[in-house]
Structures are given as C-alpha cells and as structure tokens.
C-alpha cells in the first residue's frame, strides 16, 4: 500500500443533464491537509459527498483507503469523520447525546464513548455545555461540536466542507486553531473553502475548482508564484477619472484586472510600477500595495472573484 488515501481519476458527477463534477483527477496523501477551493456551484460539495460515499459516482474511478465507495461504503465511513457544509446536529438532543449517538453508530460501547466525549468536549472547548441542548449554542460552538462529533471514531481521514463559512472572525480563528492541532497531530484533512486566507492558512496542497473542473493544482505558494506576480497594487479612482486612467495604464504592469470598485495591477516590483504610473500621469485616489494571495490566483484562473 502507498500512502495515498484518496485517489480520483476522471471522477464525474451528473444530476440529470447538469454536470456538477466534470472528470477530475487528484491524489490525497496520508498526513496532508488538502484543499478544494472554488466559488459557489464549483462542485466541491458534490466531490466531498462522493468521497464520503453518500452520493454515488456517475463515472470515473474513486478509491478511499484503497476501497471502492460503491461496494465498500460502510468500511470507508467507519474510518472517516465528516463535517458537512450544513450543520446537521440533532437539535432535540444535548451536546453529549449528539456525540453519544454518533459513537453508537460507530459501534463503540458506552465505556469507550464516555471518556472520548470528555476528551472531545475539552478539545472543542465545550466542556461546560456538556448537558445543555444544542439549539442555543452559537454558530461557532455548533461548528466546533460538529467537528468533535466527526472525531468520535478517531478517524483516519477528516472531511470538512466549508468549516468556517458564516462565522465571525474570532470564531473562525478559534476553529482554525483547532484544525492546526489536528494537523499537528498527524491527521489527514480535506477542506473545502471559499476563502483564500483559509486555504493559505490550512492547506499543504490544494486544487482550484471552477464549474466542475480542476483549473489549477499545487501548494498555496506554488500557485501564487505560478499564477500571480509577487505584488499587487490596488488602485481606487474617482468615477470620472477611472476610464481615462485605465487607458493610460495600459501595459504598465504584467497584468491588470479592472473590477467594479478598483483596479488591480500585478507586478513583481510595486515601487517600479508606482513610478511608471506617476510618469504616465495617473493619479489614483488611493493606492494599496499588498502581497498577492490565492484570491488573485483565482481571479486570474477564472476571470471572476471568489466572493461577490
């Protein structure tokens, strides 16, 4: 056996005449955090559902732990932990009952489950909520509980579908911190996200998906190096000056993107470019220099912004 946990070749998912996942290839290795980055409808969730064996594959090949999801789904599910995009905690049960039932579904005995619940609630920072119902928990707490629930069976592979969407920054950072710990302890993670910063923070390797296809693959660093020059100038103009400025700026940087509210110039040297702008008589209202991110990669690859 190699250390490849998930292998997909030509993996395809169709719903009637809509192709949600369009022949994608990827390998996910033991111990890495692998990201699927893409906008709404890219096919991320459809891919996760095929990996977690809750959606039959339409075409192509997929193995998880070397097992076939079509015929060995149960053996696969025994060894994975799933954090779905949409929370499905049982709101009629308490925090610990939610974990208990999942443990039972995973064939654990009461004696095995109880210490595990204590440990996981500590990890999720929910120990003081053990016997309260789930309903009144905050969004961040629910998400952490969902993660705790996914860990009840000590899974070999953890699949997180947009773990932090809809959370405020503080809740998100707390969650990232928990995911770092899992990574540090050697877990294999699959994470889907809309967020560039999340992918940069958490993923060792990622694929960018758009309209069911993989449009790029690599480490966050590699992707940025390959698809976006080092630095970005973000320029804002008065409405009247903008069109004129866009014409004057033509060719001043390696690449430019004109967005609704600003113009982005991609360059290897922001100072140089700024001087060139000045020489051409371009005077933006506001200039922001930053390092390029996966967001820029995405814009480059698809011509669209990730979140609009």
């Amino acid at each position: 056996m190699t250390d490849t946990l998930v292998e997909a070749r030509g993996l395809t998912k169709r719903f009637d005449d809509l192709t949600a996942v369009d022949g994608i290839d990827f390998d996910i290795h033991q111990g890495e955090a692998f990201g699927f980055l893409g906008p709404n409808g890219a096919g991320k969730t459809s891919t996760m559902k095929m990996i977690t064996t809750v959606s039959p594959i339409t075409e192509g090949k997929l193995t998880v732990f070397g097992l076939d999801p079509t015929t060995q789904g149960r053996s696969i599910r025994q060894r994975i932990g799933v954090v779905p995009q949409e929370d499905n905690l049982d709101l009629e049960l308490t925090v610990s009952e939610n974990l208990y039932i999942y443990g039972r579904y995973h064939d654990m005995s009461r004696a095995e489950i109880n210490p595990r619940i204590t440990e996981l609630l500590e990890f999720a920072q929910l120990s003081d909520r053990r016997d309260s119902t789930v309903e009144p928990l905050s969004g961040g707490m629910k998400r952490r509980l969902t993660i705790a629930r996914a860990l009840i069976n000590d899974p070999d592979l953890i699949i997180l579908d947009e773990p932090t969407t809809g959370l405020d920054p503080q809740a998100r950072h707390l969650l990232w911190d928990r995911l770092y710990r899992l990574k540090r302890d050697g877990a294999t993670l699959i994470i889907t996200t809309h967020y560039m910063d999340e992918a940069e923070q958490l993923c060792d390797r990622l694929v960018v998906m758009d309209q069911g296809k993989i449009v790029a693959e690599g480490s966050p660093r590699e992707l940025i190096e390959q698809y976006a020059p080092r630095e970005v100038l973000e320029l804002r103009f008065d409405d009247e000056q903008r069109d004129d400025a866009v014409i004057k700026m033509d060719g001043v940087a390696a690449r430019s993107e004109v967005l609704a509210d600003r113009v982005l110039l991609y360059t290897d040297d922001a100072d140089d470019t700024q001087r060139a702008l000045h020489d051409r008589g371009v005077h933006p209202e506001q200039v922001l220099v930053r390092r390029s991110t996966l967001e820029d990669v995405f814009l480059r690859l698809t011509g669209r912004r990730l979140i609009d």
Partner: protein
Amino acid sequence: MTVLSRSLRVAESEAIAYRRTWRGTVISSFINPILFLAAMGAGLGSLVDSGSGELAVPYLAFVATGLMAASGMQNGATDGSFPVMAGILWRKNFIGAISTPISPSDIIYGRFLWAMLRLTFVLVVFAVIAVLFGAMEIGPALLAVPPAVLTGLGFLTVITSWTVTQKDGLSLSTLFRFAIVPLFLFSGTFFPISQLPGFLQPVAYVTPLFHGVELVRKIALPGVDASVVTSIPMWIHFAYLLTMVAVGLYLSTRLLDKRLRP
C-alpha cells in the same frame, strides 16, 4: 456490525430522543383513549345498546376494539410521516446518520423496531384503559394488542415510503385530512360496514384500516356473529396487513436511499 445491530443503534437513538419528547405524546396515548371511550362508548353506547340492539356485543366492546386498530393506524401514520420528513429536511438526523456506518435501510429497520415497541406500549395502555371502562376482560383486551400493532406497522411502513418521496411537509397534513380521517370514520371503527350504503361496502373491503379493525375483533371478540364482523376469513386480513408491511419496507428502504444519496 450486522443489520440487526445497526438497526438497534438507530432504535436506541430514537429512544434517546423520545426521552425528550414523550410528554407531548402522552396526550394522544393516554388521554385520547379515555376521551373516546367516555364519549363514544359510555355516552353513545348507552343510546345504541338501548336502541334496536342489532349488535351481538355491547357497543363499548365494539368501539373499543375498533379504536384500538384505529389507534394503531394513527400512531403508525404519525411515526411514518412527520418524523420522517424531519429526519430528511428539518431535524436532519437521517442526514447525520448516513455519514456513519449507518445506511438508509438501517434507518428504516431501526425506526420499525422502535415503532413496534412504542405501538405495543401505547396499545397496552389503551387495552388497560378499555378494561377499566369495562369494555372488555383483560385477556381479550391484551389479545387485541398484536393485531392493532400490526395495523400500525402496516401504516408506518407504507406511509414512510410515501413520505420520503414528498418535497415538503405540506402534503403530510393533506394525507391526514383526506386519507387518515376518512379511514378512521368509515372503516368499521364506529359502526359495522354493513351499515354503509351498498355501493360503498366493496370500497371499505379494500381499505387497510378495515382489515385491521376486523382482525382485532375476530381475535379479541371470538364467536361474534355477522352483526359485528364480516365472514371474510382471518388469514385474508393477516395477509393484507403483512403485505403492507413487506411492500412498505421494501419501497421505503429503496426510496429513502434514493432521497438521501442522490
């Protein structure tokens, strides 16, 4: 894990959830039998029995047996509709379960086991209340429980298979209004089928609650004559209800799989 042990895990989760919600169901399990037996049996019954007296048994015994089958239907239909839709759409506990080793068919079988237990409990309570009202002796009252439970399981499974094909909860109330309530009223629960207009009697023969009611009466009130029950042999009622269970289980496992794993 075997199918049985997985189904038992699902039944266990139902039991844990029931610990939180049982108070709401107490009304229908305890209070409804009392109200119905008081109004229909004791009240209406005294009128019926003092009338032409066509029934070979006291009206209270007649209606208590009918109500036990109807209670099986009511509870089975309820278990097969709203909690199933909730598992898929609202509470989403089915969605949560299938990312573990549990599969949609385990959910169906586990809920079946749990419903069997709950129906038995509800109907034993009903039987005891009927005894307290003087409708039946304890022996016949308890004999009425298994056929009433079977009636409930028939409705549970068939309605579950229908529910999992429904988009949302709207159609569920329609089901109760246009199917369950008419069945409740016209399946021989409150008056013998022979009292229906002639052209309606064959319709009653093919409806499910009729077979449940007849089976309960033929088992719990043995030797009653044609004023109370039809001459249809018991095995036909059995076969009818068992077929409902078998077809219901077959369809609901397959249809729930389709629904949950698109």
